[in-house]
C-alpha cells in the first residue's frame, strides 16, 4: 500500500510539468501511475451494467390532403320486374356494375356507371387509413347506401407529387315498390396516416 502511494506521488509530479521527447522512461512511470489511479477509482464503485440500447423512433409526415376526382354514379336503373325485393345493385371499386340477381328481367341498368374516386397527396410510401361510413341516398324515397372502400392505401413513391388516387364503390338494395326518381347522397370520406 505504501508502494502504491509512492507511485501516485510520482505521477502527480509528472503532471505538474511539461513532458519532452527525451523523457521516455519517466513517461512510462507516469503511465503506470495513471493505470493505478483508474483502477483505484473503479474498485469502490462496483459493478457497471453493460450498455443497453433503447431506441427512439418517429414518423414524420407531410400534411395529407384529399380531393374528390369523380362522383359515384349507378347510371339509370329501370325496375322491370312486376314484384321483387332485395335486389342489390352494386359498383365495385374498379367501377364494374352488378345489376341485381337477374339483369334485364327484374332490373335493367344503363348509362355510364362509375365508382367514386378520391386523390390523396402526402408523404411518399406512407400508409393511409380510409374510412367511409354508410349513408342514405335521398330522393322520392330513401335508399341505404353501403360503401365499398379500401381499408388502407399506400401512397407510393409519388405520393408527395402526383399523389395517389383510390376508388370507392358501393351498393343499394331495390324492390319493386321503390319510388322512382333521382336519388343523391354525400360521402363522408376520411383519410389519416396509419
Amino acid at each position, binding site marked *: 500500500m505504501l*508502494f*502504491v502511494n509512492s*507511485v501516485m506521488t510520482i505521477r502527480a509530479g509528472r503532471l505538474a510539468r511539461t513532458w519532452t521527447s527525451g523523457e*521516455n*522512461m*519517466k513517461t*512510462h*512511470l*507516469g*503511465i*503506470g*501511475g495513471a*493505470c*493505478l489511479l483508474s*483502477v*483505484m477509482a*473503479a*474498485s*469502490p*464503485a*462496483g*459493478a*457497471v*451494467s*453493460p*450498455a*443497453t*440500447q*433503447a*431506441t*427512439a*423512433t*418517429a*414518423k*414524420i*409526415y*407531410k*400534411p*395529407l390532403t384529399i380531393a374528390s376526382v369523380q362522383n359515384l354514379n349507378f347510371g339509370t336503373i329501370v325496375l322491370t320486374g312486376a314484384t321483387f325485393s332485395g335486389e342489390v345493385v352494386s359498383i365495385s371499386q374498379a367501377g364494374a356494375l352488378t345489376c341485381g340477381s337477374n339483369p334485364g328481367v327484374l332490373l335493367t341498368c344503363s348509362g355510364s356507371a362509375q365508382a367514386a374516386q378520391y386523390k390523396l397527396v402526402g*408523404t*411518399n410510401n406512407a400508409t393511409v387509413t380510409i374510412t367511409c361510413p354508410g349513408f342514405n341516398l335521398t330522393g322520392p324515397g330513401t335508399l341505404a347506401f353501403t360503401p365499398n372502400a379500401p381499408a388502407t392505401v399506400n401512397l407510393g413513391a409519388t405520393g*408527395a407529387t402526383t399523389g395517389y388516387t383510390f376508388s370507392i364503390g358501393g351498393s343499394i338494395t331495390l324492390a319493386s315498390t321503390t319510388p322512382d326518381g333521382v336519388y343523391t347522397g354525400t360521402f363522408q370520406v376520411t383519410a389519416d*396516416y396509419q
Partner: protein
Amino acid sequence: MARLGFLALAACVTFGASAASGQCRLCDLPSIAPSPAAPPNADVQLQVETNLSFDRMILTGPGSGAATIRPDGSSGTEGSIMELGPRATVGTVVVHGEPNRTVRIALPRRIELFSVGGGHITLDDVITDVGAIARLDTAGNMSFRFGGRLILSGDCDGPYRGDLPISVEYQ
C-alpha cells in the same frame, strides 16, 4: 526507470483484483457468505421496458419545429409540427441490483435519428425523472422514465430511428 514503471503497472493490477474479488477462490470455505437475494457488488442490470416513441408527427410546412416528450408523459409541439401521434410513449427502464445502493445513470443528452434514405434529425435534452443519481429500493429495484426533444427542420418527412445507449453503475 522503465522497470519501475512496469512494476508499478503490475502492482496496480494486483491491487485492483484483490479489492474487486469478494472471496478467496483457493480457500476451502468461502470467506464471505453471500446472500442469495442480494449479493454484495452484484451486477447491476437494466432492462428497457418501453422505448421512446414520438409516434407520428404531421408537418404544417417546411419550416423548423420541435416535439417534446417529458419523463412524466406529457408532450408538446412547436413550430411547424401540427400534432404528435396518440401512440407516443415515454421511455421506461427498469434497474435491478444490490438493495439500497446508489447508482449513477448515464445516457446521452443528444443523439441522432436516421431515416432509410439517409436523412437525420436530432433528439436532444434527453432527461430522466430521477436525475443522474438514484437509489435502488430495499428489493434492489428501481425504474425511471426518460424523454427528450426532437428537432426538425426542412423537408424531413419519413420514418426515423436512433439508438440511445443507457448504462447504470454503482456510485
